[in-house]
């Protein structure tokens, strides 16, 4: 295959532009340069025409560039002609002749306006998010009451399935991570308390911290990352493939069929996981206290019994179902907000996890204030 050329041959007061070689996509960069040069001849002669009889191969790229050249030359005054078209290529050139000049993609405004625009949209978005969350809470509660009145509507199989996904399958990783965190907290406590000769108080710290805050908070964050994202991705891809619309048209309520079982599973799962997590953390802490701090198990346990009361445990566990609600609601709202594209699915899954964790921590703060003011 020979590269494309465009030769200028003067003919009287006219000018012939003789194209030759293969005018195809492969040579597009070279072709563009050739045509760009030739376009400068616009208006230089009264009569310019393009001779394509020597072109060995032509495709859309070549045909378009010839057509573009013809249009540019025509602007100079005379209608420029294309000569020497073979029958095959004539149809192709006719085809590209119908092409209207490219419409430029809509230009963005100035940079400053774009930034302000982004901020404005985000602030407005916060309001919308809150409305969507409240809407979802309402819808789930309404669905719950409907199911309460007609227990046959309750989807036990689905709940059990989701319970396996979010609870049973999550046990190993949750227990492992909380165990390690328990170890680390105990080690740090002993290391610093030792300077005051207060090693044994590490048990108090560990007990209160793990049962009240760390156990449930850590587990909630893990569940938001593990199951919240899964909920969003599942619901989002169902939304993308119109499965949710299909359910609706069959007379099913998407909230009842898809969201309620997931919420119930999560609300059951999180307390269980939080309890297991807290036990694993205490176990890990106790192990470190024994091996690293020299607190033997029996004194660890008796110290623990003195340090903590059932209140600490209750304070921790009460938070778990509420956090599960928050994670579930956020995940489902985000899932249903997914639009048609893969990118949108990714964005909403990310935002599900980020918002889920954020609201979990906010709720934890609210609980801390509440319990402090009622004095437990």
């Amino acid at each position: 295959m020979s590269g494309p050329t465009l030769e200028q041959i003067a003919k009287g007061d006219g000018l012939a532009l003789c194209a030759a070689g293969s005018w195809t996509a492969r040579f597009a960069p070279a072709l563009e340069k050739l045509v760009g040069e030739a376009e400068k001849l616009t208006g230089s002669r009264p009569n310019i025409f393009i001779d394509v009889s020597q072109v060995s191969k032509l495709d859309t790229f070549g045909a378009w560039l010839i057509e573009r050249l013809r249009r540019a030359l025509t602007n100079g005054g005379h209608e420029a002609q294309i000569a020497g078209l073979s029958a095959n290529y004539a149809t192709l050139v006719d085809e590209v002749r119908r092409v209207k000049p490219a419409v430029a993609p809509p230009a963005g405004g100035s940079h400053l306006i774009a930034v302000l625009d982004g901020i404005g949209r985000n602030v407005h978005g916060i309001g919308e998010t809150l409305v969507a969350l409240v809407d979802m809470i309402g819808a789930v509660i309404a669905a719950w009451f409907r199911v309460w009145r007609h227990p046959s509507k309750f989807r036990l199989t689905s709940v059990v399935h989701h319970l396996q996904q979010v609870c049973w399958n999550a046990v190993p990783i949750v227990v492992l991570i909380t165990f390690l965190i328990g170890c680390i907290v105990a080690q740090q406590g002993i290391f610093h308390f030792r300077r005051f000769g207060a090693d044994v108080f590490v048990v108090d710290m560990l007990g209160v911290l793990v049962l009240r805050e760390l156990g449930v908070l850590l587990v909630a964050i893990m569940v938001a990352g593990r199951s919240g994202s899964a909920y969003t991705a599942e619901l989002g891809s169902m939304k993308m493939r119109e499965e949710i619309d299909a359910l609706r048209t069959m007379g099913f309520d998407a909230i009842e069929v898809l969201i309620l079982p997931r919420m119930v599973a999560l609300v059951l799962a999180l307390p269980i996981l939080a309890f297991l997590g807290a036990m694993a953390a205490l176990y890990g802490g106790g192990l470190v206290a024994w091996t690293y701090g020299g607190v033997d198990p029996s004194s660890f346990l008796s110290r623990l019994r003195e340090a903590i009361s059932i209140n600490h445990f209750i304070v921790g566990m009460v938070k778990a179902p509420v956090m599960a609600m928050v994670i579930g609601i956020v995940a489902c709202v985000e899932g249903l907000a997914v639009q048609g594209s893969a990118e949108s699915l990714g964005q909403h899954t990310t935002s599900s996890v980020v918002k889920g964790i954020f609201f979990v921590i906010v709720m934890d703060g609210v609980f801390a204030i509440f319990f402090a003011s009622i004095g437990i």
Partner: protein
Amino acid sequence: MTSTTATPIVETPTAAASTSANAIISVRDLTVAFGSRRVLDGLHLDVTRGEILGFVGASGAGKSVLMRTIIGLVPKVSGTIEVFGTDLDSGDKARREVERRWGILFQHGALFSSLNVRQNIQFPVREYLKVSERLLDEITMAKLTMVGLKPEVADRYPSELSGGMIKRVALARALALDPEIVFLDEPTSGLDPIGAGDFDELVRTLQRTLGLTVFMVTHDLDSLHTACDRIAVLGNGKIIAQGTMADMLASQHPWLREYFHGKRARAVIG
């Protein structure tokens, strides 16, 4: 289904043994299996340069599998596939060269959902050719015009397009680099008869103007009738017949008789 009785099937002019010099795609002894199930079993097929080959067969017979095997999405057990005279097993570099010269229209369009129409069409061009933004935009418009879409469509996203428009945009993307072969997987499924007719006409026109070779998997008897030069029929993992529409109509093979002389077929062919 396709019983292997001794009924004389349509004579195949480009018989398996002779590799015609004009074959742009030539498939030899191709076997593809999923687990123990053999979908394609020693299949031979030649596609001649510049023709539109319609490829039919019962649902689940492996039409799409053959197409996907040729374009390299499904691994084969044995056999050779040559495209443009290049064996597709002869290394990645040779393969890339070939891939650049074909375009594929997937059954459901397979447009990139996070890119708009303009970006979808420009994507392969940007990858392979260093050309200006202006030319890219112009070429996009040219392709959109060719497939019969308005320029306004360029800034829409795939989720905002109708089924027919998705097919057209996908065809425009398949044609973006001016390929020599296009593979169409059920291009007219899901289109209304007018849209499907237009699409057939479009494929015909493109084949004439661009000298395309078209490999079309289809169930649409109208398409087979109006657009295809030649028809190949898949059954039991092999090509059971190939030839023109007239050959198909004359065939005595039970499945072919049912396919081409059924109630629906009579309405089309008469």
